[in-house]
């Protein structure tokens, strides 16, 4: 839509303006402590790589209480679950990396699918204005280009910001984003040439080639599924599920009830397809009994199933968290490369 600049000296004022009547969330802390948290306009960081945990935690917390009931027979509705509702408040997120913003859109299509709308997700997702921060210096593990993303990607964002000489450059992407920036003292400017130039530079700094995994979406599903490399790809795996906990698009959860003598609560907790319990039937039958099926499930889901359901968009956004976090170095880039071509022989 339109482009603006904010001078370095006006940054605090700018963040004050965008967070008027809203909570401001932005990455705080260093290294593994870097996370998306409520913060104040004067503490905004521009020099982080990315948050340790993905921002999905702000929309889909590790534990979320959905319903509750009481057991007091003297009151109405005893033993009947009541909606705890979604307590989302208007907020503005500053500093989402484009890969993570795209990840949220992938999860959003699952939480608001063709038949059902998850009210807990929807409330939080739609009450958040999202200002992205483009990546000028991708980390060594980044590969957004390979999965159809860009260091200046715009999906899922209301405004895309980038650090430029003497301040911030802004590009508004939605009506809401435009209205938000208009309400500040940001000065309009023409930045498209600069953005294009910087985007190309940032692409160049990534090791990944553009769209190099696209061929996976074109291959036959069962052929990819039956490739002989899977047992060897999975051999290292500890089934710890760290990859799924850190993934910006992994959205699987478990629903659990807990109760005391006074009442109870139904909540959902992050779950992981790496756990054998995830698919275990009460009868004892398990459709994915060993780690080979479970590891395959994760990669197939990211790179084959989600593209089928979401018009070719990968369920992996190239943020590289799983690459770094995996204790046994199962690198999704290597696996994706294997999934790109038929493998005749199984190799390590």
């Amino acid at each position, binding site marked *: 839509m339109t482009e603006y600049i904010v001078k370095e000296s006006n940054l605090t004022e700018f963040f004050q303006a965008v967070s008027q009547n809203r909570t401001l969330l932005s990455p705080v802390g260093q290294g593994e402590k870097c996370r998306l948290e409520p913060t104040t306009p004067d503490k905004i960081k521009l020099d982080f790589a990315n948050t340790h945990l993905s921002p999905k935690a702000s929309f889909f917390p590790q534990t979320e209480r959905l319903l509750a009931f009481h057991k007091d027979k003297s009151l109405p509705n005893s033993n009947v679950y009541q909606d705890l509702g979604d307590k989302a408040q208007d907020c503005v997120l500053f500093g989402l990396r484009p890969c993570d913003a795209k990840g949220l859109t992938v999860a959003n299509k*699952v939480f608001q699918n063709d038949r059902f709308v*998850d009210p807990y997700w929807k409330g939080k997702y739609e009450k958040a204005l999202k200002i992205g921060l483009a990546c000028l210096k991708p980390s060594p593990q980044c590969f957004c280009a390979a999965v159809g993303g860009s260091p200046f990607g715009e999906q899922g964002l209301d405004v895309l910001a980038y650090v430029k000489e003497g301040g911030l450059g802004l590009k508004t992407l939605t009506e809401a984003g435009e209205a938000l920036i208009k309400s500040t003292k940001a000065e309009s400017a023409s930045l498209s040439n600069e953005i294009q130039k910087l985007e190309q530079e940032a692409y160049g700094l990534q090791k990944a080639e553009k769209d190099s995994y696209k061929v996976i979406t074109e291959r036959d599903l069962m052929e990819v599924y039956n490739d002989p490399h899977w047992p060897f790809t999975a051999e290292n795996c500890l089934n710890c599920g760290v990859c799924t906990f850190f993934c910006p698009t992994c959205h699987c959860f*478990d629903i659990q*009830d807990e109760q005391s003598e006074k*009442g109870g609560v139904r909540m959902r907790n992050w779950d992981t397809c790496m756990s054998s319990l995830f698919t275990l039937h009460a009868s004892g039958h398990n*459709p994915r009994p060993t780690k080979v099926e479970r590891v395959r499930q994760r990669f197939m889901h990211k790179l084959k199933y989600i593209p089928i359901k979401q018009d070719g968009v990968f369920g992996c956004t190239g943020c590289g968290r799983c690459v770094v976090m995996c204790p046994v170095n199962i690198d999704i880039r290597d696996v994706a490369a294997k999934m790109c071509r038929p493998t005749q022989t199984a190799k390590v």
Partner: protein
Amino acid sequence: MNNPYLPYPVRIAEITVNDDERNLRTFKFEFLNPGDEEKFSYLPGQFAELSVPGQGEIPIGIASSPTEKGYLLFTVNRTGHVSTFLHYMKPGDVMGIRGPLGHPYPFEKLKGKNLVIIAGGFAVTTLRAAGVWLLDPANRANYGKISFIYGARGPSLLLFLDDFKAWEKRDDIDVFLCSYKEAKGWDGLVGFLPEVVKKVCPPADNAAVFLCGAPVVIKFTQTVLLEAGFKNEDIFLSLENRMKCGLGICGRCNVGPEYVCKDGPVFSVAELSGLPREY
């Protein structure tokens, strides 16, 4: 906004113990709030989450037909945590039902066709519902010949026997009941379901099959059906997988890109043939 996680409050109206081993019970539920029955609009083949406060939820196929007003039926096999707890509950207890979930059998698409319904063991529930629904005067005329083949390990394990005995007397449905093994007092068909299907199955012309049962039953019956000339497109199975949300979100029931809860549980064999066998 309508919250798909929130169950309708229901009261257990009646519990029937179905088998000698007391592992199968049929629960009859009534909605607590007037108006909820209207909202709970379903067709046979769909399922619902039985929600026991403080214990959890289990996805169970709906055994009653929407043509039976005023109540819902579910047959529950005692296996895990929630089903065991449910078996200890009493008529009058309050709990919840969340649904309806999933897709029903493709009744609309199959109008004008002959239908063969094959059930093995307690998988009969949603098929019984389909039978009741099809025999309703409002629907019966839309379909050709209807055959119902139902077998179980023993006569005492045949559920809803009263319904089937009544149907045997009707001339707009052919009912074949069988016991997998000989039993005292059983004068009906005897034999493993696939063998019985081989003997009594009507011709495949202009016909579709609903098939439910244990995996081994499905496997062998499917072979028999294919030999008899049925096409993969015309054989409909109802799958089950571990489920939590039932809304196509929580991610555990998927078979390839399809969610059993949201996109199923009814799939044709043709639809399943291009998918991993993760069910």
